[in-house]
């Protein structure tokens, strides 16, 4: 049985349909990349998987529990098996990096403080921040914050790791380092990883399968090679970076063409 099953998921905001009957299975131990442009519904889908919002209809089953209809206690137990690193890292600025990582350990386990410290150091070491635990989030660079968020997500050794736009806003080298980290985590911890991104190099590097979203629907779901070879026009537009609305581009080009001609004539 898949670890996550999404069935006929419909989400609407003020009557506007954001997700339109999505269905998707995510298997144990696979890395699923949710790919799509801005406004395609990636983040909304992620919020549904994390039960941060209720859908209009449909279901999201995580480890066999329908998180759209379950009790608070069931939801808490599901959430303890999911680690999340948000796009903005969402670290608590009032706490040090160590305390950020230790938070769930202190709240949800009865580990002795010395063991908590050891686990925290190990998690920070895994993401390459072993020496930075005493610092506060505002003292870290963007890439380091994202790594710290991953360390915090790993604290309870979750079965599912969710990463929202992990490489957004990072330079290519730091983004590549984060991709390596995700591959390493998958290999070492054998966890299911869900990554939301619109970064193509990153998606093709880390994904086992890719689900491509467009206007709240999946246009294509498949392995890296299947997506690469897809002839679906929406997928091709996205992969080949072709603007969808050429009329706007042509209008701008025509305007600047005329402007340049006028400039040349006046000279």
């Amino acid at each position: 049985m898949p670890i996550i099953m999404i069935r006929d998921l419909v989400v609407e905001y003020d009557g506007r349909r954001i997700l339109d009957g999505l269905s998707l299975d995510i298997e144990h131990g696979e890395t699923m990349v949710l790919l799509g442009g801005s406004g395609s519904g990636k983040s909304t889908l992620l919020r549904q998987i994390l039960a941060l919002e209720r859908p209009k209809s449909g279901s999201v089953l995580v480890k066999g529990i329908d998180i759209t209809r379950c009790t608070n206690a069931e939801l808490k137990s599901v959430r303890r098996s999911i680690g999340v690193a948000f796009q903005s890292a969402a670290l608590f600025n009032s706490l040090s990096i160590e305390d950020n990582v230790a938070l769930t350990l202190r709240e949800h386990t009865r580990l002795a403080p010395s063991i908590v410290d050891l686990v925290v150091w190990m998690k920070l070491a895994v993401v390459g921040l072993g020496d930075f635990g005493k610092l506060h989030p505002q003292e870290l660079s963007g890439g380091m914050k994202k790594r710290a968020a991953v360390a915090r997500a790993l604290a309870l050794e979750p079965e599912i790791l969710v990463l929202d736009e992990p490489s957004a806003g990072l330079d290519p080298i730091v983004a590549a380092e984060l991709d390596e980290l995700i591959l390493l985590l998958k290999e070492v911890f054998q966890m299911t990883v869900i990554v939301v991104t619109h970064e193509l190099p990153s998606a093709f590097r880390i994904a086992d399968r890719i689900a491509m979203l467009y206007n709240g629907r999946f246009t294509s779901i498949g392995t890296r090679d299947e997506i690469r070879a897809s002839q679906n026009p929406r997928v091709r537009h996205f992969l080949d970076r072709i603007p969808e609305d050429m009329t706007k581009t042509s209008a701008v080009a025509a305007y600047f063409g005329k402007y340049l001609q006028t400039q040349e004539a006046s000279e």
Partner: protein
Amino acid sequence: MATVLEAVGRRTISELDYVGSLNIQLWATLRAMGSALPLVGNRYRWQAAVRQMLQIGVDALPMVALMAICTGFILAMQGASELRRFGAIHYVIDLVAVGFMRELGPLLTAIAVSGRSGSSFAAEIGTMKVTEELDSLRVMALEPVEFLLAPKYLAALISVPCLSIISNVCGILAGGLFMFFSTRLDLLLYFRYVLDSIVLRDVITGLIKSVAFATIIAHVGCLEGFRVSGGPDSVGRSTTSAVVKSTFLVIVADAVFTAIFYFTVKS
């Protein structure tokens, strides 16, 4: 006419919705309060509550004391200027003592705490919402009401009455200094008259009011933070709104309590 009625109706529903949200939040917090109590609760919540007590209570102490001293002087001087004409200057003692115990001590404290801590609650929680920290708490299976609100509410329930008592003492002391400098009334004698003029009921009504004010300030501040939507600009708006609404509600509650106590005494 229909438009006016529509506008009034919409505003009424919005205000009722606000009051309803405040009630729901209050009950949710009361249910979660056990976790913030010392010994029986979670020690991290109690530590957070103690930190909040320092911020709400100790940090506000100089401001509250100064406000009370100034108001005590003003009340004594204004009272004396009128009562002197009737040869009843000694009634200034009753005016200051009873006025502070029943009314001015709790009210001045509430206004100071609303400006300092109510706005701070709204800004803190609002910023956490904007930066996805609240979502982060939820996905870590931590309830924001229990994690953030319960310690703040407990701290306010303890700090505001304590500050009110200090405010009463400072205000009455200022009245005593005025009487000493204007009539050469001995301070010890002044305090004996003060003790004669107030009854236990005055102290209790003042404390009941300050507990109610603490509830209003903590819940309005936190609710305004939770209702933040959009970007950082809405955090600013919610901060202002927290101060305005909590000050307004404190004064309304004061009027209601005063009326209840007044008519209870009459009967």
